[in-house]
């Protein structure tokens, strides 16, 4: 019950935030002069057709009325037409979002698993060469933009060593599994298409690792410092003194509580991961939502731009709530509902 109440409260706050975001992005998207209808129909379209469409899109009304129509449209899943793909933005999102979510989830997994693993090892053996190596890695990881990683990996593993493909989601000869979720790996798994699954994962490695490294370094750093702090605490010694098996000490008494700070920044790291996907998808020609978003921005395709920002806002709200739940699950001291943060 507490969980439900907590989720409900967070959702309510989030709705407020999203509402504010919608006003912000609506204003940004209307700053630009120009006639979106003329642009959509082309310069030689007859004036009567332009007029018809302008009325259908309510563009002849004042700004706040336009906002009302835009918002109510958005709530009904109508985000307008993309100038570039010339179809409803919603269709574009449905097509491109799964590819990005797939990549981001895969990268998020790599980030969390390897970040914690590296941090735990470094913390356990703090001030040894292992620790120092991890520390150097995490400095480099944190400061390197993911597009730089992407380019270096592309050069090294894509061209020089030729271990991984350099672009796209699937090799040319592999038929794409039927789109059930839109995520190729998941679809392949569902349909038992092992060749496609392997190929899709193989295509995902370089972009996902480029995306994951920054966050991974961050997680490793934090896990390391909490673990090495906690290692020195009395209760670990006490547990060992009571003869608790070493593996249990490590996992239950050391690792689990040490993950709390790590988990609480997972949300932020995931957010920056999605932001970086904007650049990395471009480099690996990943046909995803972020590449769509960046192209929309470059082409001033404003319906698409505002939709992209709103969708990301919603994704982040959900991720943050999930992260809070995970943290609460790890730490019995945190009561759900109490305000976190500063």
């Amino acid at each position, binding site marked *: 019950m507490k969980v439900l109440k907590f989720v409900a409260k967070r959702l309510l706050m989030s709705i407020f935030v999203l509402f504010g975001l919608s006003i912000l992005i609506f204003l940004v998207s209307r700053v630009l002069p120009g006639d979106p209808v003329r642009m959509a129909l082309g310069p030689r379209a007859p004036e009567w057709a332009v007029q018809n469409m302008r009325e259908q899109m309510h563009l002849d009304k004042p700004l706040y009325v336009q906002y009302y129509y835009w918002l109510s449209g958005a709530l009904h899943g109508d985000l307008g037409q993309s100038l570039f*793909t010339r179809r409803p933005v919603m269709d574009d999102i449905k097509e491109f979002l799964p590819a990005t979510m797939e990549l981001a989830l895969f990268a998020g997994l790599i980030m969390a698993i390897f970040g914690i693993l590296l941090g735990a090892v470094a913390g356990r053996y703090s001030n040894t060469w292992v620790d120092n190596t991890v520390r150097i890695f995490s400095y480099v990881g944190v400061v390197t933009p993911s597009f730089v990683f992407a380019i270096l990996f592309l050069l090294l593993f894509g061209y020089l060593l030729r271990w991984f493909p350099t*672009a796209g989601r699937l090799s040319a*000869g592999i038929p794409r599994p039927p789109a059930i979720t839109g995520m190729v790996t998941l679809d392949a798994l569902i349909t038992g298409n092992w060749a496609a699954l392997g190929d899709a994962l193989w295509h995902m490695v370089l972009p996902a690792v480029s995306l994951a490294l920054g966050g991974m370094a961050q997680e490793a750093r934090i896990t390391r410092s909490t673990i090495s702090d906690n290692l020195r605490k009395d209760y670990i010694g006490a547990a060992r003194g009571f003869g608790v098996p070493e*593996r249990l000490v490590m996992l239950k008494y050391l690792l689990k509580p040490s993950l709390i700070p790590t988990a609480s920044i997972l949300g932020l790291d995931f957010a920056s991961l999605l932001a970086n996907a904007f650049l990395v998808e471009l480099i690996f020609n990943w046909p995803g939502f972020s590449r769509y978003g960046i192209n929309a921005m470059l082409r001033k395709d404003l319906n698409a731009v505002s939709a992209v920002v709103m969708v990301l806002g919603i994704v982040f709200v959900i991720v943050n709530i999930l992260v809070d739940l995970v943290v609460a699950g790890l730490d019995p001291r945190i009561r759900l509902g109490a305000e976190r943060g500063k």
Partner: protein
Amino acid sequence: MRKLIFLAFLCLSIVGFGAIGLADGDRVLRVSFSWPTYIDPAVGSDYSSSASFVNLYDTLVYPDVDGSPLPHVARSWETSEDGLVWTFHLRDDVLFHDGTPLTAEDVKFSMDRITTIGEGYGFLFVGRVQKTEVVDDYTVRFHLSQPFGPFLTTLYRLYILNKDLVEANIKRPGPYGDMGDYGKEFLLTHDAGSGPYMVKEFRVEEELVMVKNPNYWLPLDPETPDEVRFIGTTEPATIRTMMARRELEISDQWQPQEAWQALDAIEGVDIASFYAGTEFYLMINTKKPPTDDVHFRRAMAWAMDYQTVVDHIFPGSIQARGPIPQNIPGADPNVFQFQRDLDKAREELKKSKYYDQLDQLEVEFHWIAEVPDEEKVALLFMANMAEIGINVKVVKVPWMSVVEEMAQLETSPHIVSVFDSSHYPEAGSLLESRYHSSSAPTWEQNEWLLDPTLDAMIEDALATVDRKERFAKYAEIQEYIVDLCPTIFLFEQVEKHAYQSAYVDWPTARGEVNPVMGYNMAARFIKVYPEKRQELLGG
């Protein structure tokens, strides 16, 4: 912990899947393109769109390699004495992809649709075709509002749509009244044609997959591709990898100079290069200060380093002579040509009313982000202009945004660099689409000449039915335009494509170059030999 290690192992073991996904015996032709590809004939008019129309649709007449019209869906035609009425007799054995016959009704519908929507190649017909009349099932008649000499060749761009199919897929309400959206949403991802290929799958910004039409009314050689894929990427690194892995048969033409050498070095890959009547223009806005001053424009034309462009940036190209590429019928071989001469440039600049304020002025130069080599031209231009004291600001702009900003005079930059080619093989096409007032808001004209004298000259020439007389008028117009110096006519592009010469037979590469944009990509003339491809892959 063990689970974690297992997961880590799983991630690493993916490396092992390296070798899958290649080599199958399909007769497939894959061509790379820059997106967008609009497969709706009333919307698209760029290279990839045109290439898709050629494969999906049929036209009344078909261009021969010299540009002259051959009968196609029309068996024969006749024109009235005054050149105002054109009657076409259609074949009765042409079937659409859904099996229904192509009739005069469909031709009328296609003409009405493209003239109403007015996008794509619609400008060839808007205001020119007054009425389309269905005489009987297989006879159609066009009534023109004024005589139009090259009318027959413009019909290469009237792609015939299946009326019933489109009407069944109209979305209402839409901007076009009773016709709703005129089937625009449907035709964005589907075809309604009768052509040798039909759409199998259309993935926005990714790929257009077409398969051979088994019931095509003309015999198709069994060695022509069973499947044609237009792949929406021009990323040089990607193109090169795909070429090397034989995952791409013909490349796009937008590769940077550095890439061609690398592509040529791949075994079994050759570069096809030909002049397809494309010219590269620096379109100068003639209404915005300071480029509204003819002396200022001439100074720029004298200062430009043409030789470096054709030697280093686009090797193989030749410097352009006036607005019309020399292999287009009606080009004037005697029109004036600027050469780099800094003294003359400075002289002209002194005559300009902006001479005293050069240091406060800035000329904005926009180049197309999708074509990396244009940046070299932009920076060369910037360096050249700095020599005579003109400040240039270079801006990289995606194609879609350029199209948008060129739609209005206020947002049009001082200079845009654009490739353009004729829509039908005659000088009149470019003269009209580049310099007539009606084209000012399109991407084909950044000059905004809006010159009534010129408009009248162009209209008069196009209305001249006698070919010789018409060509004389074209020459006069070319001289008039060059004198205004609204454009720096940089070079005639040599169009290059890398292709798998070891297992693809492409007539264009053999020198059978069709001068109408898109027709060199007609897959029904291209042969693919998958056995030879497999040999390459095996060895």
